[in-house]
C-alpha cells in the first residue's frame, strides 16, 4: 500500500552540508546578537537568555551526541594526528584562557566603575584580577577538563562495543 520512499545518497549528503552551514549561521548570529546587546544595554544576562539557550543547548547536544555515538574519540584521534598540541592540552589551555578573560573583564569593570582616582583604579584592577584569577581559572580549566575526560571515556566505551566482532551478530 505504501511505497518505500527512495532516498538519494548524494541529495542527502548535500542536504546535510546545508544543515551544517545553517547551524553555523544560527550560532554566529546568536553570538553577534549577544555582543550587540551587551554593547547597547550593558552586560545584562537576562537580556540574552534566548541566545544563551541556543548556544548552550546546541553545544551540549553536540558533545553528548558525539560522545554517545563514539564520534568524539575519532575527532580527538584525527585532531591529535595533525596537531602539535593534543586535544586535551588545548582544552585545558582554553579553560585557562577563559578564566583569564573573565578575570580581566571583572578587574576592568571594578577599576572603571568603582575606583576613585588612578591609584585606586590600579589597586582595584590588580586585586580583583588576582582574586578572580584564583577562582575562575581553576573553575573553567577543571570544568572543561572534566567534561573532556567524561566525553572521551563514554565515546571510547561506545567505540569498543561497536568494534566487537561478534559471531552471533
Amino acid at each position, binding site marked *: 500500500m505504501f511505497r518505500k520512499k527512495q532516498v538519494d545518497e548524494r541529495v542527502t549528503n548535500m542536504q546535510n552540508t546545508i544543515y551544517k552551514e545553517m547551524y553555523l549561521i544560527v550560532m554566529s548570529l546568536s553570538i553577534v546578537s549577544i555582543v550587540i546587546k551587551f554593547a547597547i544595554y550593558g552586560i545584562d544576562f537576562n537580556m540574552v537568555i534566548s541566545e544563551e539557550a541556543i548556544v548552550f543547548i546546541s553545544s551540549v547536544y553536540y558533545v553528548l551526541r558525539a560522545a554517545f555515538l563514539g564520534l568524539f574519540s575519532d575527532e580527538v*584521534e584525527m585532531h591529535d594526528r595533525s596537531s602539535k598540541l593534543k586535544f586535551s592540552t588545548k582544552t585545558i589551555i582554553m579553560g585557562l584562557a577563559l578564566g583569564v578573560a573573565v578575570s580581566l573583564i571583572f578587574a576592568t569593570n571594578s577599576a572603571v566603575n568603582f575606583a576613585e582616582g588612578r591609584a585606586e583604579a590600579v589597586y582595584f584592577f590588580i586585586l580583583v584580577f588576582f582574586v578572580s584569577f584564583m577562582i575562575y581559572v581553576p573553575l573553567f580549566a577543571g570544568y572543561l577538563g572534566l567534561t573532556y575526560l567524561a566525553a572521551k571515556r563514554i565515546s571510547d566505551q561506545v*567505540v569498543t562495543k*561497536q*568494534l566487537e*566482532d561478534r559471531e552471533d551478530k
Partner: protein
Amino acid sequence: MKNIKLKMARVEYDLSQDALARKVGVSRQTIGLIEVGKYNPSLNLCIAICKTLNKTLDELFWEED
C-alpha cells in the same frame, strides 16, 4: 556484512588498523568498523584502501554470495 578480505589483506601487508588508517587518512575506528561490516566506505575511501594494499576493488569489496 563483515569484510574479512580487507582484514586479511591488511594483515598480509603487516599493517595494524591504526597504520592503515593513517595511510588512507581516516581514523582507526573507521577501518575497524569497515572490517566488521558496520560502516560502508565511500568509493574514494575504497579506492584509497585498495591502492594502499595493492588490491583491486573486487578483491577487497565485492560481496560473494
